[in-house]
């Protein structure tokens, strides 16, 4: 089984972003591997470590500026074998490069460079655009089966058994035959730390770079962003002196009790 894992370079989840004139300020801001992509990488590596799954190779794919090489190195240090960097300076946080173009780039990579990919693992969504589109769109373009929000993945014969998270509980999906696309959710695993020996080995692993414009895809955004603004500041709470005052405010000001 050959696995292709999507890894996106995004603003670190702990950063307090600010909004400038061109959307979220990215200058000098800490960037990291998208947490859900990290979970996807961890799952790919665990599948490879599970001898029964027969994973031959894991290829990590990232789309973005030259710093994506660092993101790929993280994925390689966690256990991916090879990296592919599709270079573009278009902003990936929905401002310029959007889901449809990304899904089509994935499709091109599979059809032209990694024809024998059996499984594509992606994070359920990226924490900058929060779209959650690429997994399902790619499955649609490839006409491959898909399972999203995976919380558990098991190899079953020639296919996979996937438990997926829904608002009502867990749903189990059987994918009888590969290839397929799976998007990974929080409960799937706890990603490992990349240890130093592996970080050093990762430097020697291969990363191939291609230019996004060379794939003949229209990279223009399909949706126009009208405005980006910070949510209004939270109003300060008040202290009440006693329970009676609390009840009075809940009833007469907030109107939440009869």
């Amino acid at each position, binding site marked *: 089984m050959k696995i292709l894992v999507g890894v996106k370079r995004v603003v*670190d989840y*702990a950063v307090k972003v600010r909004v400038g004139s061109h959307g979220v300020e990215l200058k000098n801001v*800490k960037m*990291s591997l998208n947490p859900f992509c990290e979970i996807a990488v961890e799952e790919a590596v665990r599948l490879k470590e599970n001898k029964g799954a027969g994973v031959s190779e894991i290829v990590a794919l990232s789309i973005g500026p030259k710093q994506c090489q660092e993101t790929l190195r*993280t994925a390689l240090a966690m256990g991916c074998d090879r990296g592919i960097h599709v270079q573009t300076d278009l902003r990936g946080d929905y401002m310029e490069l959007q889901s449809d173009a990304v899904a089509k780039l994935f499709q091109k990579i599979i059809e032209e460079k990694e024809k024998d990919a059996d499984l594509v693992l992606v994070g359920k969504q990226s924490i900058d655009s929060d779209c959650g589109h690429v997994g399902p769109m790619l499955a649609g373009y490839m006409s491959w089966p898909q399972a999203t929000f995976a919380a558990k993945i098991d190899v079953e014969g020639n296919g996979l058994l996937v438990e997926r998270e829904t608002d009502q509980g867990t749903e189990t999906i059987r994918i009888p035959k590969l290839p397929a696309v799976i998007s990974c959710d929080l409960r799937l695993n706890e990603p490992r*730390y990349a*240890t130093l*020996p592996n*970080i*050093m080995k990762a430097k020697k692993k291969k990363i191939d770079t291609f230019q996004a414009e060379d794939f003949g895809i229209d990279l223009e955004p399909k949706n126009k962003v009208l405005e980006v603004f910070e949510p209004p500041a939270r109003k300060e709470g008040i202290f009440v002196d006693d329970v009676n005052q609390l009840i009075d405010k809940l009833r007469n000001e907030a109107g939440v009790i009869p």
Partner: protein
Amino acid sequence: MFSCSFASNRLTSASSCAAFHLARRLVSTTTTSMSLRSPNANDFQELSKRIDKVLISHDAQTLLKYNADWTGHYQGRSKIVCQPQSTQEVASILKYCNKEKIGVVPQAGNTSVVGGSVPIQEEVILSLERLDGIVSFDDENGILTCGAGCVLQSLQEKVASYSHLMPIDLGAKGSCQIGGNVSTNAGGQYYYRFGSIHANIIGMEVVLPDGTILDLLSKIQKDNTGYDLKHLFIGAEGTLGVITKVAIKCPRLPTARNVAFLACESFDMVRKTLTCAKDELGEILAAFEFIDEQMLDQVGNRKKIPVKHGERNYPFCILLETQGSNDEHDMAKLESFVEKSITLGNVVDGTLAQDMKQVNDMWEIRESCNPIIREIGYNYKYDISLPLSDYYDIAEEMRERLVSKPEALVVNWGHVIDGNLHLNIITPGDFSADEQIIALIEPFIFESVVRRGGSISAEHGLGQSKNNYLGKYAKKDDIVKVMKLLKSIFDPNGIMNPGKFLPSTK
């Protein structure tokens, strides 16, 4: 993040009983000065006339959060807690108590680990908690002026919104208040990078025991006009006056912050790694902490340790942080340092934090050491400063001393970069103090530290836990004499934090 909560279930009756016995043993000579009296109901009336909010209670549980200390080793019997909301109110309280010769215990976050922030008997507690306003932040010069009752973590968040950093950081940040930090000259993990509080406080407002308000606040960094009085109050542990406001110099927030968690086979290797770090990382080295295997074993029961040797922990792990203005530059230096350390064999394993979550998780491991051991059993706590050549020898020495007491574990962690070791002896499952264990530890450990040229209290201070060792193990008689002279000048009636810091009169 560590946060110190004071649910009364923290003090089980067994532990507080034993703690009290231990406290009694340590402080039996620490009586409040004979000239001070206990406050009464009339004093409460008088104080209530002078300030807006005073608590009085004869019920031990109500005021437990003020009377009981964080370690569970000390508990006062104060019935009166003053909660001033202004410097004027602080002055009124002190003026009254000075006239009436009533002892006053200034209290900030009550996170002292040497019993410095709780009463010994019934002294009035002066809580700084309501002096929590931000006066100003000058973001061009990075100067924060605020009330002494501001919680450190909230100040960190506040100045971060202006792209600045507080120059101190410690595990207790969620509870400790800046007035307490300044009064105790708190150290913490950024001591190496930013220097001590002495270096970063540019001004303060302090109330003397007679109610005089000294405005030593400043907007500027350099001022050589007269004796620099504020330095007397820094580290004085509330024995000379009450700090009500501080002006502190804040560095700019680094855009690049990276953390490495490294493993070494021996303490010699830790030292070599430190030297290499200073050479290779240069100006971006911000913190360098260590935790030994015995402590990692305790942490490992509750948190994931990033690097392990199979099922076991490594003998020593290092937490290293770099700060700078250019992430690419810093990462390149960090990677080259790490590669060199591995090639030389100083470091055998480790990991670099890949995102802020990993940065925070790694710091959590280090900052959770103190809270974790408190949950496990009784803690015999030592905070010492040693030359690096002797740093870990003392831990091994203590293990030898305690060989007859296998239930006592010697666990260690600390700011190895500035020579500060937190040596703790714990008895898992047993929350009572064992006199035999104490006899094996003390005074041996103090004598050993002194012999090696170290300090018996690197950053935790003296409080009521170590004040009687001041003359014996820390400073010569003639020095202590000058210290007592200073105290008599500022606080002739001895009302400020009686029985603490200086050796108590017997």
